[in-house]
């Protein structure tokens, strides 16, 4: 079975919510939309206090090319434009909307009917995706239209769909594939058309045999789309790991991007959002979120409107267990501990994970014993123990020479360290600093 070449780990899967039907969440009383839900420039609010909005009304324009518009997920009145603590841990500007009823924009086609034909030109598809504010739904939130616009001189050869869901606990993508396989396949063919390629792959890890079987059956009608079962290995959902696993090509070090080897990688959730945006005129304002945790009464997959506070999802899944130690936004490997449960669901919120007190304790940090487990686990072939030390000693120049910018922050090194060293914390610090230095240098040129 295929997988990527170097490194990787296999954490306990804990897919507690697997097989749970996607259930629609109740509407919140107030929805909150942070203006920076994506990588790139923050969106610019285009509504003011007191404005009435419907479901699907644009409330913020993209703040640049690498940016995305934001749409209201509820109907009601704009209460204020203020700030809220988001997943970054800081107060960020956000639009607050008081919910009144549930009135949708007329342009949105709410029928369940499957439409497979699309007469649009590639450029029109990309424009529609851009106008729907779609970003990568895997968690990194890179604006999708940017990925579908290859830089001059590069040519896409295939579209690879990331349906790996290698993060433990999360099952949102898995469940989406079981319930909306045909819509996803139409979305994939739209993406293929948008970048003008004839080959598409959907990579699925083989811990989801039902999804693989179902997708294979449905994909029989699409000769250009191939379902690729993959061996379970974290971080297979990383763009570069997935390309390596599926088509056996290795992306060169940054600043090269996947298009350098002819691949455009999109998440399976993004493919579904593309289907809804292009065929049904429905902008991105809801997504499937996995709410899970060992102490949670009823781990579930919830179809959630953006802007719903996480506390509501936790209530819907059986309420906050008493011994909750941490609330993680995303999966346990790459997710982030949140400051409180009022953080709203954003475009990239794939999961809410409640860890018990016992689980969330970090082990006592000890000295590095040079066992090189982190080196073996690093999927990018780096030396994490060294990079972490360079970060600790602020040796940015050497960190850059040791290819720190190729780090994908997957956390395999920290996961595997027997001395419980916070390797990724230091590496991320060094990576951000070196990234800043490089940007500054490029600006001067």
């Amino acid at each position, binding site marked *: 079975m295929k997988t990527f070449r170097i490194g990787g780990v296999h954490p306990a899967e804990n897919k507690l919510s697997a097989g749970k039907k996607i259930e629609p969440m109740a509407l919140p009383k107030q929805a909150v939309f942070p203006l920076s839900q994506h990588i790139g420039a923050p969106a610019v609010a285009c509504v003011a206090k007191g404005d009435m909005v419907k479901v699907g009304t644009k409330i913020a324009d993209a703040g640049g090319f690498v940016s995305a518009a934001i749409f209201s997920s509820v109907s009601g009145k704009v209460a204020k434009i203020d700030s809220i603590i988001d997943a970054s841990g*800081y*107060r960020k500007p956000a639009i607050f909307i008081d919910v009144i009823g549930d009135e949708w924009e007329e342009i949105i086609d709410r029928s369940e009917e499957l439409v497979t034909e699309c007469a649009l030109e590639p450029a029109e598809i990309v424009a529609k995706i851009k106008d729907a504010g779609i970003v990568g739904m895997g968690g990194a939130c890179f604006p999708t239209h940017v990925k579908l616009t290859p830089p001059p001189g590069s040519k896409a050869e295939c579209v690879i769909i990331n349906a790996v869901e290698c993060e433990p606990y999360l099952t949102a993508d898995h469940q989406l594939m079981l319930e909306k396989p045909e819509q996803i396949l139409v979305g994939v063919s739209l993406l293929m058309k948008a970048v003008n390629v004839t080959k598409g792959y959907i990579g699925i890890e083989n811990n989801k045999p039902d999804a693989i079987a179902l997708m294979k059956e449905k994909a029989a009608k699409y000769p250009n789309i191939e379902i690729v079962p993959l061996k379970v290995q974290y971080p297979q959902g990383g763009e570069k790991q997935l390309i390596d696993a599926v088509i056996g090509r290795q992306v060169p070090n940054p600043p090269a991007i996947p298009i350098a080897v002819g691949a455009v990688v999109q998440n399976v959730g993004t493919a579904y959002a593309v289907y809804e945006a292009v065929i049904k005129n429905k902008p991105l304002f809801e997504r499937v979120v996995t709410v899970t945790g060992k102490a949670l009464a009823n781990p579930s997959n919830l179809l959630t409107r953006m802007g719903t506070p996480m506390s509501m999802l936790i209530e819907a899944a059986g309420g906050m267990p008493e011994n909750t130690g941490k609330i993680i936004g995303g999966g346990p490997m790459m997710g*982030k501990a949140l*400051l*409180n449960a009022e953080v709203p669901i954003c475009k990239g919120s794939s999961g809410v994970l409640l860890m018990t007190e016992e689980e969330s304790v970090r082990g006592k940090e000890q000295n590095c014993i040079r066992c090189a487990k982190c080196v073996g686990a690093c999927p990018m072939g780096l030396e994490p123990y060294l990079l972490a030390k360079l970060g600790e000693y602020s040796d940015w120049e050497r960190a850059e020479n040791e290819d720190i910018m190729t780090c994908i922050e997957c956390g395999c090194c920290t996961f595997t360290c027997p001395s419980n060293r916070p390797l990724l*914390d*230091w590496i*991320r*610090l060094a990576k951000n600093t070196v990234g800043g230095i490089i940007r500054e240098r490029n600006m001067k040129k």
Partner: protein
Amino acid sequence: MNTILVAVMVLGATALVLAGVLFVVSKKFAVKEDPRVGQVAEVLPQANCGGCGFPGCAGFADACVKAGSLDGLLCPVGGQAVMTQVAEILGLSAGAAEPKVAVVRCNGTCEHRPRTVVYDGAVSCKIAHATGCGETGCAYGCLGCGDCVKACQFDAIRMNPETGLPEVDADKCTACGACVKACPRMIIELRNKGRNGRRMVVLCVNKDKGALTRKACEVGCIGCSKCQKVCPFEAITIANNLAYIDYEKCKLCRKCEDECPQHSIVAVNFPVRKPKPAPEAEAPKAAEAPKATEAPEATQKS
């Protein structure tokens, strides 16, 4: 016997030739260095802290010798005494330098600023700062991981386990600025030591609006500008919901301290006030408990 003789002769001849070469090279390529650079370097403290802005003491000595006047050149570690010596060697006059000290502009002790979450990542303010606003609701205040303590070469800054804040030992602090650079939240500032070590400081850097600040910290500056109005010397400016006292203009009249509703303005090293209503005496006590109540000479560490 013969072999030994040959060896001695060959090696001896080689040594002589090479000695000649070395002699010629040393004369021909000799770098003429101003002898005063060495002399100046000798009087410098050799801490190589970089506080002067030059790479180490040798770099600073070189800069002093090359410069026409000593204005703007200051060894913060040696201070005025060393600069006078340097001026003597160079035959220049030393610029008058006001001694400075690092001031931690945060008074968010455990008492004043409730902890709402627990940070358990790597012990580094820089990392904690990148992860989120920290253990309290204040996104501007001290994170308490001690990056400034690690940066200090002079053992002048220590964490106080009771308050969770770093404390500067004014006698040891050389104002080299290492802690200022180390702090990711720019809380530490170099301020004039002031007469008898007395200074008026706004111990807060929170730029949030008043209501948010008040929620996060009992002694946070809310930018109400009462102090600005009461200041007779126009030493106080308000920007981004935050007051700042210009130490050049401040005449230490303490009017702002009485006016501040949040007790964010703290008078350091002043003698205890004569019996007056309680609230005024409380503020300095809470801020720098050991120092404010004692005379400055009495703060020597054992």
